[in-house]
């Protein structure tokens, strides 16, 4: 177990800044997710922790030791690539044994550890196969087994689930989380999928254009987005933002519901909602439309759970209400959250 500290890390590729002055500390044993759109610098950040890229400036400290310019092999980190990067010319056994062999572990210990790691992921029967004979899910397990076999102090994962089909992905997510809990290894996980991030992370780091926008637990990120980028990147559909002078008011689609007797009080704001489009998704309905005056009408979405069955038709206007305590205010110029709510 280890702490990873990033101090003012920047990475430039020619004229483009991939990572811009990032400061980040992991907590021992936590599952930290780096979340952001593609090209936001999250993978570059992970590769710098691994030692495959060297930061242009700043320092990386693992377990109190400055490793900024040390090669990957000295860092005792394990990494699983998006492609799994299995050695195609080696059997599964040799793949898993590889990190042990380079460290000069003796044969009997290698066999024991490989079998233990393979057993953990249920691939004990595949040890003599070559990677090309395996399915996507099996390859992923081999990559994970290879990563844990040498008991790393930090575990780095670069979108390891993105090559799996949707059904497999959900069960792989659960497995991944359970096994990380069991090992208690500090894990840094990169993804662009917010569902993965919310479901897996102890904490989430939201990044865009090389900068960290927010670090927080999934509820913090969802309920108190630090700025409009986080507000609109996390959540599907994203947070509604409407213009109110110098301020943008934001609220989640599921908090914007048809007005009724319960909402006729101080705690709620009611808007006339001109519905333009409706999507029926089974468990819920998504209602698209505009609110506010003509001058600055804003497009918003409402997410109605299945148990609200009132009829709604496109082209008509309905009164919809949102609780005041569900509304977040952002500065229009900077996009930053004004009321933090955490006092």
């Amino acid at each position: 177990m280890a702490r990873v500290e990033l101090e003012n890390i920047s990475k430039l590729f020619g004229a483009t800044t991939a990572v811009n002055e990032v400061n980040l500390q992991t907590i021992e044993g936590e599952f930290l997710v780096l979340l952001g759109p593609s090209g936001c610098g999250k993978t570059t950040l992970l590769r710098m922790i691994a030692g495959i890229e060297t930061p242009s400036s700043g320092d990386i400290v693992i377990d109190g030791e400055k490793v900024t310019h040390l090669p990957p092999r000295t860092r005792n980190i394990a990494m699983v690539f998006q492609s799994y990067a299995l050695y195609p010319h080696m059997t599964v056994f040799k793949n898993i044994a590889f990190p042990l062999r380079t460290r000069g572990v003796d044969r009997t210990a290698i066999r024991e550890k490989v079998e233990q790691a393979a057993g953990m992921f249920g691939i004990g029967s595949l040890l003599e196969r070559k990677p090309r004979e395996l399915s996507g899910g099996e390859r992923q397990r081999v990559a994970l087994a290879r990563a844990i076999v040498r008991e790393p102090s930090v575990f780095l994962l670069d979108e390891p689930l993105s090559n799996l089909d949707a059904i497999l992905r959900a069960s792989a997510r659960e497995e991944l989380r359970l096994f990380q809990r069991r090992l208690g290894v500090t894990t840094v996980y990169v993804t662009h999928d917010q569902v993965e991030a919310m479901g897996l992370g102890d904490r989430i780091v939201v990044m865009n254009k090389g900068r960290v926008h927010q670090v927080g637990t999934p509820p913090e990120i969802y309920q108190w987005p630090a700025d409009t980028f986080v507000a609109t990147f996390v959540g599907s559909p994203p947070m509604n933002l409407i213009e109110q002078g110098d301020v943008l008011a934001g609220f989640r689609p599921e908090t914007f519901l048809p007005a009724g007797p319960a909402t006729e009080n101080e705690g709620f704001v009611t808007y006339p909602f001109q519905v333009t489009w409706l999507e029926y998704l089974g468990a819920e309905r998504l209602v698209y439309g505009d609110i506010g005056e003509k001058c600055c009408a804003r497009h918003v979405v409402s997410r109605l759970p299945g148990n609200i069955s009132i009829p709604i038709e496109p082209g008509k206007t309905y009164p919809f209400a949102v609780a005041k305590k569900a509304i977040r205010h952002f500065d229009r110029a900077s996009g930053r959250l004004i009321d933090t709510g955490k006092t």
Partner: protein
Amino acid sequence: MMTSAGKVFRTGRLYALLSIFAVFSAFPFYWMIIATFKRDHDLFSPTNNPFLFNEPPTLDHLRLLLFDTHFLTYLLNTFLVGMAVVAITLIIAVPAAYSLARWARGWGEMLGIGIFLTYLVPPAILFIPLSRFAAAFGLQESLWSLILIYPTFTIPFCTWLLMGFFKTIPRDIEEQAMIDGLSRLGAMVKVVLPLAISGILTIVVFAFTLSMHEFIYALTFISVSAKKTVSIGVPTELVRGDVFQWGPLMAGALIASTPVAVVYTFFLDRFIAGFTMGAVK
């Protein structure tokens, strides 16, 4: 009915094409074999059928080639030069191709093209200045002149060829090897080279055959019979003035070219086989 007829037609067409190609490739060998074993009288008589033995075959030409010329020495020289050139080429082209394929972004490609362009400068232009070099280093009449000069064209060609092979090996795999405890050099030797083995075998074959069939340099630098390679020994020793000793000439060509043809036929498939399949999804 239609489909089976169509199938027969398509298969037939395929086999017809392949047959034409097989005859085209095999005919020179047939010609060499028949000329090697024909008696001179049979060979030179215009009334005889040139495709068949009209008189009983003979081993005279082979005997002349093997025992009355330095042919066996030529073979040995060719082999020595070829192996030395292959070794030099591997030592230089493998690291060069690897670093051009991996490290220099953008520039690597341009440098690679630049290196390849040097391959296109014909020996006909270079052999005069190079002969001055060979003289300056005291290498005339020495196989060393060939061993040192042949890499000037094998290295650019093989570097270019290998760059392509290295590029097909996913970067992830060597980065993974570095994370798994190897240095960059270690990752190259233990992971990248085994995956590039088909490419390396290919350049071994290419470097060997390029140096084997080279003519101009060998002709310029070597005139002592015992130092000659096959590519110049056979035509210079077996063509006397305007007298072509076709029998021994063809025998020499046959012996020198058969191993190469066999190597190409049986190994080329393997060179091309997709070694990195299944490495990355």
